[in-house]
């Protein structure tokens, strides 16, 4: 096994541990008797961190060509625009 491959495996293991910790933290946070907004923001924030960890390290966006990141960002921008239009509607009570 090469040194590079070994260090990659170590990184993958550390990321896996973080994913487990963040998942359990999210579940624990949802059980707390605090404001609903804090729980929603906290739990979805933790989910976003988990998704970014998977995309950056397991899907190798961190080290791959930048073009692939743009491929991923493009639909997110479109989705953001669509959500802005929808949430500006009076039908949605925020």
């Amino acid at each position, binding site marked *: 096994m090469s040194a590079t491959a070994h260090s990659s495996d170590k990184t993958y293991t550390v990321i896996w541990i973080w994913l487990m910790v963040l*998942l359990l933290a999210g579940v624990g946070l949802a059980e707390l008797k605090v404001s609903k907004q804090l729980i929603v923001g906290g739990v979805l924030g933790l989910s976003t961190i988990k998704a970014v960890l998977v995309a950056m390290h397991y899907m190798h966006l961190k080290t791959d*060509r930048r073009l692939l990141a743009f491929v991923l960002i493009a639909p997110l921008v479109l*989705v953001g625009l669509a959500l802005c239009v929808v949430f500006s509607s009076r039908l949605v009570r925020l």
Partner: protein
Amino acid sequence: MSTAAHALSAGHAPSHAETQTGIPNGKLAMWLFLASEVMFFTGLIGAYIILRMSNPAWPGSEGHLSVPMGTINTLVLLCSSATIVFALSAAGRNQIATTRKWLLLTIVLGFVFLGIKGTEYAAKFHHHIYPSTNVFWSCYFGMTAFHAIHVIAGIIFNIWVLMYTFSPRLWETRGHRLELAGLYWHFVDIVWIFLFPLVYLL
């Protein structure tokens, strides 16, 4: 090291790929496909959020969803993401037997996820809860069923790549598809990372 092993080293593109972008066509195609899948699932999840926020009397699960089972299922998928990346790493070192072991474990974890999801569905049907029961269960069954279909597709893709590991000739020429299977599997994992809290926790 074989061509496929070079290609898979550290999860990068095959060295022989000469394209305008510098990214192998298959890998770029997979990312473009995943981008379209982002739109698909955001449509589903977005519809759920909007329905929920615009409904003053949101019915919710009324205690019929088990957070521990959902948490275990999330743990299973997160573990399977790790196992497939370990398979890719082993392939990069040309350790085919190890690659096969990790890939097999990924497939097993995929089936475990589906088994738990199937158990949950059976419990709902036992309690006469169906997609037509109310808007929450329509969203629940719609989102989780589409996700489960993607898990099944991912398992098939993984089994397909697993078959290559038994043939040195196929592995040499097609082993790089393990990276594509991994990308798809991680995407399925990311979708569940958001579905789980939205449906079970919040």
